[in-house]
């Protein structure tokens, strides 16, 4: 089953990492991703720009555009992974591996109901 691992973290904190710290986290994460990719289990991965760059469309009538992210929270949605996992335990193992590479914050693990890979946009 496909799981979405949604990455929440305090973006002020992540923004305070030095370039070296940021690069160190990214390269540790790359090792975990590499492993998953070799097993053919890794779907799309995204790192989102800061929430200051976000806009929210509230689907009222007429739809209302708001600056900033949908929810004002202590920790922000900063990125996500899609990973093929046997079950929740397996998905939690993957999240633990990712968490060891990138401490702090939280992962929300959500089973995926429908997935359309879309066209390649890179």
């Amino acid at each position: 089953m496909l799981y979405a691992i949604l990455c929440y973290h305090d973006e002020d904190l992540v923004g305070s990492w030095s370039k070296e710290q940021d690069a160190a986290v990214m390269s540790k994460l790359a090792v975990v991703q590499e492993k998953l990719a070799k097993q053919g289990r890794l779907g799309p991965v995204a790192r989102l720009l800061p929430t200051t760059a976000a806009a929210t469309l509230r689907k009222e009538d007429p739809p209302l555009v708001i600056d900033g992210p949908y929810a004002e929270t202590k920790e922000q949605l900063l990125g996500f992974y899609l990973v093929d996992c046997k079950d929740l335990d397996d998905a939690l193992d993957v999240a633990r591996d990712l968490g060891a590479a990138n401490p702090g914050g939280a992962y929300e693990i959500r089973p995926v109901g429908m997935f359309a890979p879309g066209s390649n946009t890179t």
Partner: protein
Amino acid sequence: MTDTAWIDAALTSARPQAVGALLRYFRNLDTAEEAFQNASLRALRSWPQNGPPRDPAAWLIMVGRNVAIDDIRRTRKQEPLPDDHQAISDLGDAEDAIAERLDGSHYRDDILRLLFICCHPELPATQQIALALRIVSGLTVKQIARAFLVSEAAMEQRITRAKARVAEASVPFETPGAVERSERLVAVAAMIYLIFNEGYSASGDTAEIRSTLSEEAIRLARLLLRLFQSEPEIMGLTALLLLQHARAAARFDSEGAVILLDDQDRSRWNQKMIAEGLALIDKAMRHRDSGPYQVQAAIAALHARAEKPEDTDWRQIDLLYGALEIMQPSPVVTLNRAVAVCKVRGPQAALEMIEPLAPRLSNYFHFFGVRGAFLMQLGRNDEARVAFDRAIALANTSAEAAHIRMHLDRLMRDSQPRDTKAGK
């Protein structure tokens, strides 16, 4: 989290909020700073053992407050303590209580106040910047001194003097009204822009050291935008800084010499920063409430969007500078506009545009650099040489002087064929 570097990052990110809240509580900058320092020291001892708290800022505020109150209690037993000090008994409960209160309205105004204190109108710009970097960003005096290329002692003195001035002035502690808040925002935005420029105007040999300043300015701008998410000018400011800083790696060659926009290796521009900058300016424009930062960001965006120099939309840049001239009339803006005019309508029109600026820019390096370049394009080499000589005399950095010398060398090389052509 065991590595102290990670704790440092957490302390840095919690600092504006924590010092801001401690300042509101103690109404004294030194006490607030000291309380934060003490709390940080305890964090360095406690966090590696007990793990980081869920909300580092709330932890630091509470511990800092307790330590400072203990100190006050010890030193002046007779004087009444600030209100509700007795509420702090159990660590967990108190942390939750404070965290809850921070989620409310204080958070924003605490940070804005902290930034605003640094922009006291009586402080010269250099002191404002130094103070903000010390108090808000938490850079060490040594780091700031290094970035400003002055001795640590001189910087220490500068900061001490600035703090004394601020202490004398009455700091506005009451929650600001809407008008006051927006005035503070304008002052703070200007200061962040100054910090950025300190880093951006560095010469090649110091660019790397001074880029700390630009990066810090971007961090502060993002922080401000988090607090005021629908302020188009703060979006514009953040976008402007990101779009300018995106070119950092391409602005100097390995010897530290300036590389002009047209000659930069655009593959070295930071695409992630450009993407963020473009997203922000895009969002800002939707508000249809233009301002100088947005216009400058829009100009930077046109450069960022051009894959090759010849793709640059100079006509649009000319128009945007025209808008900026109206919002913010300044000879420097007109001078910049003339560069766009030169591309669109040619060097003669551009030269005519800047001639009236001469009296006001008679000590401005860039004026003579640009004037020399226009004259050179018109084949008026002798006059160009005079302008370039003057530019070299006014250069602020060795890289600027070296760059103009390159033009002069080209003039020397070209003078033969050009004169022949002129003689026909």
